[in-house]
């Protein structure tokens, strides 16, 4: 019984990380209709930079700050490249080339070995939970994802920027006609996503090991979460992250190597009943 509960807790903390990864991905999609295929590359770039900073200075917080800012700048560069092509589909295909370049750059600088970022000192002491010890850092990830989720909710619902973003998501031509500078909004969304994904990379790199190929698997999880939750919806990606996190953790604990079928099956069942995802809306 405790074992199941423990896997449940694992799933929820993992969902926290997945939500942070997927929320930026879904934000870009919602506003620009572009699938940013370099999203996984953003993640490992943030993780690698945070790893190096943490290694050099011993300061974990400095690592995640520098990591997210660096990815924010990278995202800005990607944004300028993407804006040179017209149409969502060519833009999406273009980001695939960018993903290859960032992935190969990381391989060149940091080599092929998988790495993990050292834990920050404030989560060193494990928590006693259900008669066993549980790493505190995972709860920190969960708390951080709640802060990120809350912050995004506040930004989208309560601020002028959020209103503009929602307007841009719902009806881009109309928002543009009302005098909103859509181009500037796109840039902002990309930078925001870069910061957020860099942060998730730095935090996720402390949570689970990363290396070459992680960019690919992170992109998979981001895609599955966002498709399941409904593309472009932030609450949807929270719900999708929760489902994927739980199914994946429990699947890995009990059915081991065929856990991926469980994930695929969940996705298929969700899409059979809700073709646009759990909280997705009709186009």
């Amino acid at each position: 019984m405790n074992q199941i509960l423990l896997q449940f807790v694992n799933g929820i903390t993992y969902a926290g990380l997945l939500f942070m990864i997927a929320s930026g991905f879904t934000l870009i999609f919602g506003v620009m209709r572009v699938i940013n295929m370099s999203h996984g590359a953003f993640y490992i770039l943030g993780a690698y930079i945070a790893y190096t900073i943490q290694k050099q200075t011993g300061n974990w917080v400095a690592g995640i700050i520098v990591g997210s800012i660096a990815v924010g700048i990278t995202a800005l560069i990607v944004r300028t490249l993407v804006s040179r092509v017209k149409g969502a589909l060519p833009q999406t295909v273009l980001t695939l080339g960018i993903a290859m370049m960032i992935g190969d750059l990381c391989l060149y600088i940091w080599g092929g070995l998988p790495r993990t970022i050292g834990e920050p000192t404030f989560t060193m002491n494990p928590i006693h939970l259900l008669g066993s010890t549980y790493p505190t850092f995972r709860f920190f990830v969960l708390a951080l994802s709640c802060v990120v989720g809350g912050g995004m909710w506040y930004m989208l619902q309560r601020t002028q920027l959020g209103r503009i973003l929602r307007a841009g998501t719902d009806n881009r031509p109309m928002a543009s006609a009302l005098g909103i500078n859509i181009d500037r909004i796109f840039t902002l969304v990309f930078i925001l996503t870069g910061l957020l994904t860099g942060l998730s990379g730095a935090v996720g790199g402390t949570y689970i090991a990363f290396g070459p190929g992680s960019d690919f698997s992170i992109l998979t999880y981001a895609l599955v979460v966002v498709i399941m939750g409904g593309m472009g919806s932030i609450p949807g990606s929270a719900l999708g992250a929760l489902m994927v996190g739980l199914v994946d953790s429990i699947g890995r604990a009990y059915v081991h190597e065929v856990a991926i079928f469980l994930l695929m099956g969940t996705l298929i069942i969700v899409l059979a009943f809700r073709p646009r995802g759990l909280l997705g809306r009709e186009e």
Partner: protein
Amino acid sequence: MKANSVYRIVVIAVILLLAVTAPYWLPLYYIQLLDMSLSIGLTAMSFILLAGYCGMISFAQMAFYAMAAYVIGIGTMDLGWPNWVLLPLSVAGASFLSAIFGAIAIRAKGVYFLMMTLALSQLFYGVGLEWESVTHGWNGVAGITRPEIFGVSLLSTTPRYYTALVVTIICYLMLRRLVRSPFGLALQGIRDNPTKMAALGFNVHLYRYIAIIISGAFAGVGGVLGVYSTGVVSPHTNDLSAIVRVVLAALIGGVTRLEGGIVGAVVTVLLISFTSRYTSRYWMVVGAVFMLVMLFLPNGILGIKLKKNTDVPSGRST
């Protein structure tokens, strides 16, 4: 018009002559590369069938390719099944996978379709990686034995190249016949105006679905050629760089014409081979070329030369 058709016949004859005589004047290494290009090119043609003729950008073609390759690899090495069972079974397997993926992705359009097929393709990568007792995980199946045709083993490069050449030409002719048939014309009509085609009584979903399954089967044939070419199948058969390779081949060739897939595949495989000789950062070069093609040649090499005013089908966003 007449001069044009003479010109075409000459071009086709020259290309065929070059392709058939290649083993006599090219080093064996290049024949191996050409053999690889044919399998990639066939898969790129299956991509073009969906992208150029149906307006659906599918990133799952390499999953169908890998499915057929896995059937051959596991069937030959682990189960020891005969080739006359495995060859049809591998193509059937690829079609089966495309039928599943298609059933899930068919309702999505444009960029949504791309996203669905990419996610499904990546989940298939995960299956190859994690279902170790069947797929042998990370390492995959290596050293796959090749069949014999008329007493000649396909283990040696030249007979394998000729076999691949014949198979690719047959598949190309079949695909060409298909896109010019009433079925293919209906697909192009659906690409341009699905609402109108539906009003005319065409079952739009069914047409699209059948096109996905057909393209899956041809990608599967590409996978069989590919697994015989390299002798290896692993999750990397279907990883992001493999997807990039086949999509780049289609983009370079221009997604508006089937033969673009072969031309693009030869260019792509040669590009990767040349750059990997000078630098180990060749994926960076490939990524950059990929970007440059998207930025400056959105219609590809053949696309620009032949039809200046043809829109890239991918340009239509929803």
